[in-house]
């Protein structure tokens, strides 16, 4: 495959269902995974600058090295749970190129010396699960994997794919986060050091194992080499999962999907833990950390959600925040009560109800926006997982990006666009929440 050509990850994709092992090998080569020297692979992954693609962007080579260094035999977990409802890239990857992910998982097992391997996939992702079950049967028959992979269905829910939640699930508990430390790489599944990698990250590892770091970096930016999967949705004619070179301009991605930033209200980048960009900023940025950081944004899990021109950013934000509050695992007070209070106060703002029954004190007791700003600062960092942090990041970016809209609603109440249905998916509460209640 030519280094500059896209797609890479999705090169062997079969939209009718998972590509067969034969088709996968015809597309990508590497008949025997044992041909890859583990220490060479870790070095190449490091040189390639690969970072986790689940949203946290942690350097992959560091994780591989740390987990392999423990005294006990590690466990490797491929995370395809994709709790972010606005994202579809992991489910698409698993459904269309399951063998590329499973190659990456097997290579991570070899690189860390792991004794067991799991692939976690959302219970609701039927196509992905079917493709994986078929692919695993083919691999077992061909003797491709040294360590058998166990397929695990993760209950739906925004926080059920969080690392410590997966560990607890694999240890026989409920898929809700636990207090850290210890972190999974120290003590995870069965008390063993556990490597948890997003499935897209593993698919990149599978390609780096074939072509090396230089090939990986032939596209992308010097700081962030390679390609990435993104989920484009909202005000575009052709939504869906795309593979882009990192550093691609946001405007060209949206144009490619048949959308126009100049005719949007903005872009929500990185999913519901992400950041709002106004249309002017959105037209100037490229999709890489260096370009996005000054705007407080990151590509995160790769969601690019374009807000339609006739939508209300206040109403959309309030709906997402209310939904995120409902997705709390219900374990930590500041998350349960704080996010609900923030959602209540934002609803007061949207409705222009300035004399709500708030808890605020002082001269501006009746200003729900001031309360929300204070609570955002107080709630961050106070859960066992990062759920409250992500939710308040979205709130803070909405207040900054759509400041005038929030002030306008506070003064005059709901606008004409408030009643418009949600532009982005907000599924009913997940199993994890019900189990924890």
């Amino acid at each position, binding site marked *: 495959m030519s280094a500059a050509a896209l797609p890479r990850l999705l090169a062997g994709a079969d939209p009718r269902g998972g590509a067969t092992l034969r088709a996968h090998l015809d597309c990508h080569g590497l008949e025997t995974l044992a041909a890859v020297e583990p220490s060479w692979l870790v070095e190449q992954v490091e040189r390639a600058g690969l970072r986790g693609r689940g949203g946290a962007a942690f350097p992959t080579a560091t994780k591989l090295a740390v987990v392999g260094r423990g005294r006990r035999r590690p466990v490797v977990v491929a995370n395809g749970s994709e709790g972010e409802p606005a994202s579809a890239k992991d489910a698409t990857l698993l459904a269309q190129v399951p063998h590329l992910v499973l190659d990456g998982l097997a290579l991570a097992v070899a690189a860390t010396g792991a004794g067991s391997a799991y692939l976690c996939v959302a219970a609701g992702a039927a196509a992905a699960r079917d493709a994986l079950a078929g692919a695993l049967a083919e691999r077992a028959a061909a003797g491709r994997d040294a360590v058998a992979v166990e397929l695990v269905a993760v209950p739906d829910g925004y926080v059920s794919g969080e690392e410590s939640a997966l560990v607890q699930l694999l240890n026989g508990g409920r898929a809700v986060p636990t207090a850290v430390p210890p972190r999974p790489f120290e003590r995870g599944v069965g008390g063993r050091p556990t490597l948890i990698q997003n499935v897209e990250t593993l698919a990149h590892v599978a390609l780096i194992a074939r072509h090396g770091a230089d090939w990986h970096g032939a596209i992308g930016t010097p700081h962030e080499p390679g390609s990435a999967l993104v989920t484009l949705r909202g005000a575009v004619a052709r939504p869906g999962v795309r593979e882009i070179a990192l550093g691609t301009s946001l405007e060209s991605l949206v144009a490619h999907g048949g959308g126009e930033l100049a005719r949007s209200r903005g872009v929500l980048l990185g999913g519901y833990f992400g950041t709002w960009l106004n249309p002017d900023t959105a037209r100037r940025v490229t999709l890489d950390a260096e370009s996005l950081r000054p705007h407080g944004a990151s590509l995160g899990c790769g969601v690019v959600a374009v807000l339609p021109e006739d939508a209300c950013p206040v109403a959309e934000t309030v709906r997402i925040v209310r939904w995120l509050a409902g997705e709390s695992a219900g374990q930590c*007070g*500041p998350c349960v009560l704080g996010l609900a209070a923030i959602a209540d106060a934002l609803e007061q703002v949207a409705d222009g109800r300035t004399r709500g029954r708030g808890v605020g004190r002082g001269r501006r007791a009746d200003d729900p926006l001031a309360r929300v700003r204070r609570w955002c600062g107080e709630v961050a*960092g106070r859960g066992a997982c990062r759920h409250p942090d992500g939710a308040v990041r979205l709130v803070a970016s909405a207040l900054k990006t759509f400041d005038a809209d929030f002030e306008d609603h506070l003064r005059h109440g709901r606008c004409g666009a408030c009643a418009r249905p949600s532009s982005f998916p907000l599924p009913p509460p997940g199993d994890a929440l019900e189990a924890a209640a």
Partner: protein
Amino acid sequence: MRGEQPRLRVDPIACTAHGLCAELLPERVRLDDWGYPLVDGEPLEPELVAHARRAAAACPTLALKLEAGARATTRSTR
């Protein structure tokens, strides 16, 4: 050697907002609007360490912890 003093940490799952910590260690713990403690991850002043240990021992759910050393295990909240 401030850097070697222990730091306060709250186990957010164990904490159920009894609020004793804020009574016993008002110098370093205040409560949010829902009665849950706000602590920072800074090392404790040496003269407060004994008070902090008493507060941690008095916590009905043992959610208040004193942690030695590594900053990496502590998340500051403010």
